[in-house]
């Protein structure tokens, strides 16, 4: 099969395909660990990131990830080994130092929190890069691979790293489940939590520690630079789908796991590929899909709702215009030309004709040659709308002291959203001095049923 390979791409694809097969056959134990590790990391990072997001401390994770870099380098320089535990402790220490600085600066100087974050982030990152360049030009053994911490690389990960990753992320997930209620309370209303006597500082520290831990164990996989995305993008995407924190967290965990899996797999299959950027790109894709297609808050749904409202308003306006024409003719003539309709209500011809045809199709209107008239069904609807319009005008002129032009403007809008209950409420409030006429002197038509009874 492999005899003839005219293009290097084919060989590459072949290789990638083989790797993929190995990856999913679970034969390569290392690949299986990577799979599990990235799943857990995606879940724990996005869940803990969600709390940072809700507390409006989104950039904290980013700063802490950058702050971890010099710690890793120092640990390597001091111990001379690439022991997973060693590097982890170094990263943890410098990340915590960064956290302390971010917290300390605004409290004790005039520097505001956002500036403190930016200053700390760039200082630690620069320090880390400096140490990294020093290590790379030095003669130290085992130095290769440290630069992979910038963007992450699943293929370069050791079994030891993965084990640590699994311990830590499981612990993080467990703690979030355990303290869920308290974390939510503090994220929602910090001062109130304090008045309950809850040790807010302790929980905040715990949350920060969880973020630091997730960030630090994720470095090998995601990298320093893009860690913030895996903390924040999942919850941002999930926000379009759900309003309940528990389901929001589950959804965010799902998004995080999915993209971490994708990124880790791609970089495992094609070892030259960095993992972090792949994770972030797939996460962003999920975000855009959510933004566009989410069932309630997606852009498309909102646009669709708006279009529907626009059509409905146009239809109702036409029905009401025909009713007014009918009224003007003392209910003697029920067919009106386009010219008569547009004389009363200025409308562009094209949408007017289209809507008229649609209304005819739905039996609200009847067409007599070139003229249109209300059907019985259309008449009922038109009466209902006109009644609401004129009731609202009466209500406004009585209660809000507006002149007749102003009340008309308002009623033009309100008539489309009033419901039966609100209509009755208006009638009840107008009861004492309910005129049969609106402020312009036009009669307020009665409820359809009553009207029919009278005409029969």
């Amino acid at each position, binding site marked *: 099969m492999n005899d003839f390979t005219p293009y290097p791409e084919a060989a590459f694809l072949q290789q990638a395909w083989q790797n993929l097969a190995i990856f999913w056959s679970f034969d390569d134990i290392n690949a299986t660990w990577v799979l599990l590790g990235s799943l857990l990391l995606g879940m724990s990072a996005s869940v803990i990131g969600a709390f940072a997001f*809700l507390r*409006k401390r989104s950039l904290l994770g980013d700063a802490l990830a950058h702050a971890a870099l010099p710690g890793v380098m120092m640990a390597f320089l001091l111990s001379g080994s690439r022991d997973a535990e060693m590097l982890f402790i170094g990263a943890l220490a410098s990340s915590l130092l960064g956290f302390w600085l971010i917290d300390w600066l605004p409290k004790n100087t005039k520097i505001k929190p956002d500036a403190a974050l930016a200053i700390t982030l760039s200082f630690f990152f620069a320090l880390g890069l400096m140490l990294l360049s020093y290590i790379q030009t030095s003669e130290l053994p085992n130095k290769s691979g440290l630069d992979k911490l910038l963007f992450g690389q699943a293929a370069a990960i050791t079994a030891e790293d993965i084990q640590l990753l699994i311990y830590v992320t499981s612990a993080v997930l467990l703690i979030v489940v*355990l*303290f869920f*209620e*308290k974390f*939510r*309370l503090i*994220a*929602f*209303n910090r*001062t*109130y*939590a*304090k*008045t*309950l*006597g*809850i040790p807010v500082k302790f929980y905040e520290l715990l949350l920060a520690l969880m973020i630091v831990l997730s960030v630090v164990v994720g470095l090998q996989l995601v990298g320093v630079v893009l860690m913030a995305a895996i903390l924040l993008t999942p919850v941002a995407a999930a*926000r379009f789908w*759900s*309003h*309940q*924190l528990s389901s*929001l967290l589950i959804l965010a965990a799902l998004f995080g796991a999915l993209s971490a899996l994708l990124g880790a797999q791609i970089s495992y299959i094609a070892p030259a590929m960095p993992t972090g950027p792949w994770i972030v790109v797939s996460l962003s894709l999920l975000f855009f899909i959510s933004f566009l297609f989410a069932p309630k808050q997606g852009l498309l749904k909102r646009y669709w709702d708006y279009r529907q409202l626009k059509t409905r308003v146009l239809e109702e306006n036409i029905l009401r215009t025909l009713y007014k024409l009918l009224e003007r003719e003392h209910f003697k003539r029920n067919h009106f030309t386009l010219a008569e309709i547009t004389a009363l209500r200025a409308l562009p011809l094209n949408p007017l004709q289209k809507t008229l045809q649609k209304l005819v199709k739905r039996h609200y209107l009847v067409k007599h040659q070139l003229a249109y008239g209300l059907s019985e069904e259309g008449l009922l609807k038109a009466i209902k709308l006109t009644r609401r319009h004129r009731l609202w005008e009466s209500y406004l002129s009585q209660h809000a002291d507006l002149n007749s032009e102003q009340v008309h403007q308002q009623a033009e809008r309100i008539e489309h959203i009033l419901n039966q209950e609100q209509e009755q409420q208006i009638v009840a409030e107008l009861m004492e001095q309910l005129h049969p006429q609106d402020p312009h002197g036009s009669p307020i038509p009665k409820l359809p049923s009553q009207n029919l009874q009278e005409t029969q």
Partner: protein
Amino acid sequence: MNNTVPLKVDQLSIRYHHKPILTDVSFAIPAGQTVAIIGPNGAGKSSLLKGIMGLTPIIQGQVEFFGKPLSEKRLTTAYVPQREEIDWDFPIDVMDVVLMGRHGQLKFWQRPRQADRELARAALQDLGMWEFRERQIAQLSGGQQQRVFLARALAQQASLYLMDEPFAGVDVATEKAIIELFKQLKAKGNTVVCVHHDLNTVREYFDYVLLINSRLIAAGPSTEVLTQENLNKTYGGRLSLLNDLTEQMYRSRLDNAHQDD
């Protein structure tokens, strides 16, 4: 019920950086009454409540709840923050917000129990919000949000309630519900302390009044304290020389240096 004074404040001072917010405020509140804290904008009304609850650092002074420090009387004291302090877009429903009132008594891993849910239900019913229990808080009107906050405090089963502007920007139904709540709480011998801004309703809603403008102007039953003279003092000329000098004192750290002798 309680013979001791529910809330006693002794020589309380609060400052923001070097700016004096409140200076030397002392008062004691009688049990079983509704108490209004009245004063112009920026007089330090909310700061007073926050200082009492330990949410703002106080530079001197003492606060006693039923004769004890706050740490021993947390469970008998409920605080209702201003509505504007919260992000109402937070993904949570009404019931879960009210259940937060029970967390002072729950261990760190505990979820609300059936008994807590019962209390939350009773609180929501008292404020006419039971049918909204599954509603997202983002979908509530301003008045309904306020009632949820009050229900949460009520679920705490406290005997002293400190409320920051509960009447601000609420509808008629909510205003009625709050008045009804006051009656219930008073009937149980509980005490309510409110920051209030509407002078027209003070006499009607509150038994006792604290007039505040950077310092305590007057404290006493509303029938006695709400005189034109006191109101003029509260809302009239600012005591600018006094505040300026106090600020200067804080800047110079004189208060610390002075303690040496």
